[in-house]
Structures are given as structure tokens and as C-alpha cells.
């Protein structure tokens, strides 16, 4: 069996396209983790206020985690592109 031919240029182009698609995702998730305040101030009190605060904290933590996850992929992509240079 002959090995599958590898086209480094095609692989690099593919990785760069992936990088171009994922970089804005990381940027958005990072910004959202810091800025996202989907709850407008209201006269909430008691358990409702606590639930809102918990939701907000969980959401920001989730956005941070997603940003880290996507950033890991982006870093790997950059590394692979650099290795192909």
C-alpha cells in the first residue's frame, strides 16, 4: 500500500481557514465572559436576587471556560501552522 500523499500547502490553507473562523469565537467568548450582563437591574430581592446572582456567576464562568477551550484549539492551530512554515 502506498502512503496517502500529503499536500502541506493544502493542510496549511485548511488550518489557516480554521484559525480565521475560530479567532473571533475566542474574542467574543472572552469579551462576553467579562462584559456580559444579560440581567438588567430590577427591584429583585430575596431568593430571586440570589438566583439571578448565581445565574450570572455561572454564566460568566461558563463563558470563561468556553473561551479557554476555544483558545486551546486556536493555540494548537497556530503551533501547527508554525510547524508547517
Amino acid at each position, binding site marked *: 500500500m502506498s502512503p496517502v500523499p500529503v499536500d502541506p500547502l493544502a493542510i496549511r490553507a485548511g488550518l489557516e481557514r480554521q484559525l480565521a473562523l*475560530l479567532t473571533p469565537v475566542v474574542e467574543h467568548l472572552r469579551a462576553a465572559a467579562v462584559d456580559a450582563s444579560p440581567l438588567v437591574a430590577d427591584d429583585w430581592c430575596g431568593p430571586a436576587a440570589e438566583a439571578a446572582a448565581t445565574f450570572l456567576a455561572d454564566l460568566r464562568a461558563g463563558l470563561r471556560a468556553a473561551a479557554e*477551550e476555544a483558545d486551546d484549539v486556536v493555540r494548537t492551530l497556530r503551533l*501547527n501552522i508554525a510547524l508547517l512554515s
Partner: protein
Amino acid sequence: MSDSVSEADDLGGPLLVTPAGSVIVATDALLASADRLRALEAALHADSRRVVAADSIASGMPIEGIVPTLERLRARCEGARDAFGRIAEDYTRAEAAIERAQRDLAAAIAAIVGPAVVGYLARMILLCPGLLLAGALLGWAAIPDGPDGRLGTVRDFMIAHPELITTPAFVRFVSLVVTSIDDAVLGGIGVPPWLVALPGLELSPGGGVAAGALTVAALGSMLGMFRETPVSVDRVSTAPVAQPPTGVRERLDRIPEVNQVRIEKYEADGMPPRYTVYVGPTETFSPFATDEPWDSTSNVHGVAGLSPGSFRAVELAMADAGIRPGDEVLVTGFSQGGLIATMVAGSGDWNVVGLETYGAPAGNIPVPAGVSGMAIRNTDDLVPAFAGPQLEHDLMQVERRAFREGVEIPDTQAAPAHQRTAYERTATAIDDAESAAVQAQIRALDAFAADYLDRPGGQATAMTYRATRD
């Protein structure tokens, strides 16, 4: 122009919004939170699609794990948004159930107690009028005599103690009383109280409010009060309009006083004219008709569904301004002006496409389907309560307390939550509202006039009218 009111200066409570075509009441903040969550969900979905697109590139590296994380986050936002919707539904359902129970109880009490009280008074008048008169005189004499007489003392007391009438609870009480007058009448003619309390047994639509106002008008007319007269109008000025109004506050600012009606005519090349009619508030509260049509007589006759002088005067002004039955009209009014604006919309004689009212006692007036706009009320303003609960219509309802719990209520004017200044603050709060639903409604009303001035040949003229009783 609208003045910006900072949060610290604003004495009012949160905005309560019932979007057009809905019965669910939610705060503007709740609606805005739902809007923000929806936007975040859309952004997360777009992120997911980018990740999927990246993963589908054959010559790239496999991407795992990110999409499920993003979808979990999106589902979390969607869950929170659903919870907000349930909160609003539960609040609306609970509030409606409480109000229904209160109205049924008030109807039963009115049917039981009303006839007894009226019968007792009638017996007193017939059998011992002297005793009744002596009691009334004793009560009157017990009121301290001030510089403006005893009536002035009562007035000053009410102004000095605005907290007595400036609460949502008192406003609800007034609404219950006015919707129970017809129940007292039904009880008086022998209908059993349990039957009176049944939903649907009312002398007029809107919870019997019109029947109650008719009763007041009929009883008052025996004492020379609330007697209607012919009216006439004079155009007192015609001037170009530099700018169309932008926002709720600017429309409120254009509602006239003294000269009670302002009509703006908007024209553009090749387009039929459009008109905005602004109707002013009550000018005198005297129950005896003088030369002022914007009086208590018009208020009572309007709520009763009759033909009040101020309504006829507005129609005369509209005809003088050249408004034809097919021309598009936006009507807006404050207090009695809101009542009359609603009557114009409900008359079917004009092509009213938009309606905006502030503190109008107009809840019992049916508004045709398709008329959009806003009915704005302060929940601690007792005046709208005189028309009972709001009938269903296609208007967005926006409410809030003019004076939120704990703030000092000014003691310089009667019924402070009904004063123009209170509605100016509410109008500014509406303009500052964040929810997409409120902002879309404001933009739609703004566009009515602005669209024409943006077109070739766009121009506008304002006509003001002074109406008098003949």
C-alpha cells in the same frame, strides 16, 4: 424638548409593560433582560456555527468539545429566559385572580349594602329630615373654618396628606367602587347578591362603569350639575412645525392647556395628508357647566359613554383642520384629553391609526382592533381608576408608580400622581426604557410624523383651537 431625569431624581417605580396583543405584565427590566439573553443566545449560536464550519474543513485538524460547551451555555440562557416568562405569567395570573376576587366581593357587598344604605337614607329623608340635616350640619361644623372656608380646609387637608390617595391600593379601591355602582343598582331592584357577583352580569361593558357614571350624571343633573351644552371652537393660531416630536416625552410636551386642542398637519409630495391631534386635560373641576368644555361635566359624560362637550369640540376642530374620514390620524391626550382621544379612536368616524394617552380615565372605552400606541398610567394615580379596569385592546399598556414606596410625596398639589410633572417623569422613563418592545412602539409612533418630513416636499403646520360652551 425632553429633560433628562437622572435615576436619583426620578421618584417613580419600575415600568410595568403589557405588550400589545398580550395580557402578560412584565417589568421593562425583565423584558430587556430577555432581549439581552436572546442576543447572547444568538451570538453563542453563531459561535457554534463557526466552530462546526471550522471542523468541517477536510484539510484542517479535528475540533472537539467546544460546540457542546457553547450549546450548554445557550440552553442555560434559554432556560433563564423561559423562567422570566414564567415569572411574568405567574405574576399576571396571581394579580388577575386577586383583582377578580376583589371585584366579586365588592359587587356582592354593593348588592347587599348598597340598597340598604340608599333605603335607609330615603327613609331618613322622608321620615326625619330634621335629624338628617342636624347630623349633616354637626359634621360640617366639626370641620375647622380656615381662611378659604371649610371646603378650603378639606382641600388643604387632602393636599397636605397626599399619601391618603396616592397609593396603588387606594386606586384599586376607587376602581372597585366605580365598578360596583351598577351592582348596587342591581341589588336595589331585587337581584340576589350571589347572582350580582357572577361574572358577566353587568349593566354596561367595562364592569358597569358607564352605568355608574350615568347614575352620577342623572343624580347630579337634578341639582343642576353635569348638564351638557352645545360647544363651538375657534382656531387661535396657525404656525409651521419645525420638528416632529421624538419620543413619548416630546409628544406629552405638545399637549396644550388653555387652548385645549392642537392639530398638526403633515404633508409630503404625492402623499395624502396625515394629522396628529393633541387633546388637553381638564381645565376646571366645577361640576356646574360654565363656558369651559374641558370640565367635570365632560369627564362624567365621557366615562358614561355619552357625547361630552370636549369630544364634540375636538371633532369640530378636526373638521376645521380639514381632516377627512380616510386621512390617517394619531390622537394623543393627557387626563381628560386621553379620555377624549380614546373616544375619537373608538368613534369609528375617523381613520385613527395611533393613540397615546397619559393618565386617561378611558379603560372602559372599546378601542377598535388595529389601533396601536400606548396607554400610559401611573398606578398611584386615582383618575384612570374612575373608568374601572382596562378593556382589552391592541395598545401597549405602560404603568408605574409615580412615587415609589418610601419616597416623600409632594404636598403642594392635589392628586400628585396625576399631575403633569408626574407624567413627564414617567414619559422620560419610558423613553429611557431598554426593552425592544417599548422602543419599537416609541419608534412606530415617532415615524408617523417623521416619515413625512423626511420625504420630498415634507412640511408640517400646527393649528391650535380654543373651545367654549355656548
